[in-house]
């Protein structure tokens, strides 16, 4: 976080840029959806004694300060999403 903006990073393995969606439900929260390129099972993660699977990440993140959701910019490189949110004065 700087005086001018909040920078949010999210590590997203198995995700491509087109699978990422960023929304701002309120001026102090940000919601990230990211679809994985394939279904991931618990077995893929080395868990053999429980069953489960998923194909999307989701997070609702509270911003420490109010941000301008209309001026959000994002970058997705090397599997990491970087979202820049200008702070509201």
């Amino acid at each position, binding site marked *: 976080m700087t005086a001018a903006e909040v920078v949010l*990073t999210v*590590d997203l*393995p*198995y995700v491509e840029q087109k699978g990422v969606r960023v929304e701002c439900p309120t001026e102090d929260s940000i919601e990230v959806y990211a679809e994985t390129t394939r279904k*991931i099972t618990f077995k*893929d*993660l*080395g868990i053999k004694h429980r069953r489960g699977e998923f194909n999307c990440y989701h997070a609702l993140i509270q911003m420490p300060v109010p941000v301008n959701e209309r001026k959000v910019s994002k*970058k997705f*490189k*090397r*599997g*990491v999403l*970087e979202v820049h949110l200008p702070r509201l004065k």
Partner: protein
Amino acid sequence: MPADLSPTDGLRIVETEPVPKKASVINGLPDVGLVGLLAASHIISSMKLREVGAIESDLLPPMIVVHGGLPKAPVRIFSGNGLVVVISETVIPSSLIRPFANSLVAWASDKSVRLMLSLGGMAVANRQDIDSPKVFAALSAKAVETQLKGAAEVLEEGYIVGAYGLLLRKCAEASIPSITLLTQSHYNYPDPEAAAAALTAVNRILDLKVDASDLLKRGEELRLRSKDMMHRTHEEMNRMNKSHEYDLPPLYG
């Protein structure tokens, strides 16, 4: 540390098979970007090193790791081909780091270790824009630079917080040649690419031929599977003020 503990107390290095003398030791402990743990684990599986011991302590978190259906200590020692690798699958609590460093170096001295190589990460803000993470090296003594074989750039000034810092200094005191490799990486995301860059440096320093391509191929899987370990490591790094490493370098030498 409580007053009634000696410098290495609470920690014992248990060898289940004899560990050879004059070996090179690689440390892969949970650190920035999990670089060391990822690289060391890859070395162990690629070179098919045998499990030869563990570092036990009543002061470590009360937990075991189950691997292949068998109960294992979280901090384990592997060996083969004149190489010894120490990995930890739990975060070593900051209160235990000093005794840990003391006992590991005392053991290394006893074993006449010829080189101790610790693998760590160096967080960079623009990691996403770096195609080839650079490797830096902190040395226990100037003379150790020849053992580096140009594999990394020497770190002249800075701070090293945590086990690797104490290990380096204790090795210097015990005259055990030691190199701490710090590879540019993410701070709190597992970074298999950085681990691959560290591995390239390790290959050069120790004349190994461990293939890093599998680390890169399995990159996304490793990032996902290591995320909980990274999260716990990150919490402990915060507790020991790891961010001190990113302060401006010290004023006086």
